[in-house]
């Protein structure tokens, strides 16, 4: 296998009696655009929080770029970028102030942080309202800013928790352009998303977590082949979409629309 960017063994997290993530063994090769999928409450965000050093696992181990995360949290955090689900921005700063802050926190010197801040604001089309506070940004602008803050130090791995949620097509295009650029330069991207069409278009490999357990992983083509092999009687003239593969694996069923006949 290729050099691993992320590797977990027996990764488990419990909150009291609830087991949010159980015995997850997840290898992600360096340079992959990796989609981490699952229904709501499946354990995606908990896994990302553990992989980024924001939450300690109850059991198991995590290696990031060959480094044990628990033993080398500072070195690992220098090499990764994170866009958490809530974005964790400081609303009362301007975009430029926040990016400068993030750059300095990642160890950039003052000049480099200022230069990259200007470039990122320009790329993300956020430079035209320099005095606007983040709290007054639209949701899409906040997502773009959160991504800019996560990449300002040039991370080797980028973790994104629902980066496209609530983002319009224009902002989504900017985000995708930025991510494709990082991949072309050899970075690894690990993202969770409910927008399966985007995942299918961007990601080469995916893993599916369901009720805290990893139920499938591999390239999208492999998963498709697996689903088709498991259902030889199905109509496979058209290629299965990722959504169909996902529903087939997690067992999602569409509700009976007959009960909503009054809708017309």
């Amino acid at each position, binding site marked *: 296998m290729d050099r691993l960017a992320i590797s977990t063994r027996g990764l488990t997290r419990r909150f009291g009696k609830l087991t949010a993530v159980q015995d997850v063994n997840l290898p992600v090769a360096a340079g992959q655009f990796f989609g981490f999928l699952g229904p709501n409450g499946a354990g995606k965000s908990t896994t990302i929080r553990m992989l980024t*050093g*924001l939450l300690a696992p109850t059991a198991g181990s995590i290696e990031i770029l060959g480094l044990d995360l628990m033993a080398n949290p*500072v070195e690992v*955090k220098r090499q990764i970028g994170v866009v958490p689900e809530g974005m*964790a921005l400081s609303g*009362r700063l301007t975009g430029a*102030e926040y990016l400068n*802050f993030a750059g300095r*926190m*990642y160890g950039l010197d003052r000049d480099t942080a200022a230069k990259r801040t200007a470039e990122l604001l320009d790329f993300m089309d956020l430079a035209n309202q320099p005095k606007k506070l983040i709290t007054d940004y639209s949701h899409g602008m906040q997502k773009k800013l959160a991504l800019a803050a996560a990449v300002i130090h040039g991370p080797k791995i980028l973790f994104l928790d629902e980066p496209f949620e609530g983002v319009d097509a224009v902002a989504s295009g900017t985000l995708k352009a930025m991510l494709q650029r990082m991949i072309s330069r050899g970075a690894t991207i690990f993202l969770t998303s409910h927008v399966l069409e985007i995942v299918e278009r961007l990601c080469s490999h995916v893993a599916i977590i369901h009720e805290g357990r990893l139920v499938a992983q591999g390239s999208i083509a492999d998963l498709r082949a697996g689903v088709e092999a498991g259902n030889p009687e199905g109509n496979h003239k058209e290629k299965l979409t990722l959504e169909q593969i996902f529903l087939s694996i997690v067992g999602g069923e569409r509700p009976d629309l007959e009960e909503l006949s009054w809708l017309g």
Partner: protein
Amino acid sequence: MTGQFAAIAKMRAQLFVNSLFTVRGNVELISRIFVILFFAIGGLGAAAGLGAGAWYLMSHHQEFWLAALLWPVFLFWQLFPILATAFTENLDSSNLLRFPLSFRDYFAIRMAYGLLDPASVLGSLWLLSIVAGIAIASPALLVWSALVMGVFAVSNLLLGRMLFAWLERWLAQRRTREIFSVIFFLLLISFQFAGPLLNRYGERSRREVAGVTLQLTVVQRVLPPGIAAWSIAEMSASRIPTAIAALMILLLYGALFFVLLRSRLRKQYQ
């Protein structure tokens, strides 16, 4: 590391400045001016009162009653930051932990946040004025009382940070902050009922109150304000070994708060 500290200090300053220049900020600016004036007048008035009180007690050889001055300082230092959480900008640890911070730096940043909050500033000012009151009445006690008050201040700071670290996730919820702001408001207006209540029930229940006060006196002696007062009182009576023993107990309290705070922050850090 220096760059990270500078970045956090700059960010805090920018947060403050930006909050003054928004539309909402204009209202906040006026309210802040009133709050700062209120705290400045109240804080300086309390400092003068505590200093005068310490001088009076030391001049009249009632050193043990210093505890009555230290308890309000202690309670304000611990309770005010929690009750005022609805009105202040709080640190969300996960915002910092995304960045490559060593545990030592993270701990130092959390302590620095504690040093700058109004309760610590006012608490330190009040302790200084108590030391001044003691020193004016009894100059020989200047060094000892400054040492004891210094340890007491550090214990307060550590305990306050420890409580905040434990309650942080809970306090991050808007509902909790709203509940605390209501409690804070009720506490503020409840003081005016103290006089009428005492007039009505004070005479009847004097014996019961005396009993409860006696029990509380026993308990307070083993807690930090009581021990700090005890140490100064013992030194004043030239009972040096007991004074040192009391200071050691105060140090132990500080060490206990440090260990608990460190363990909580370590858990957050991991």
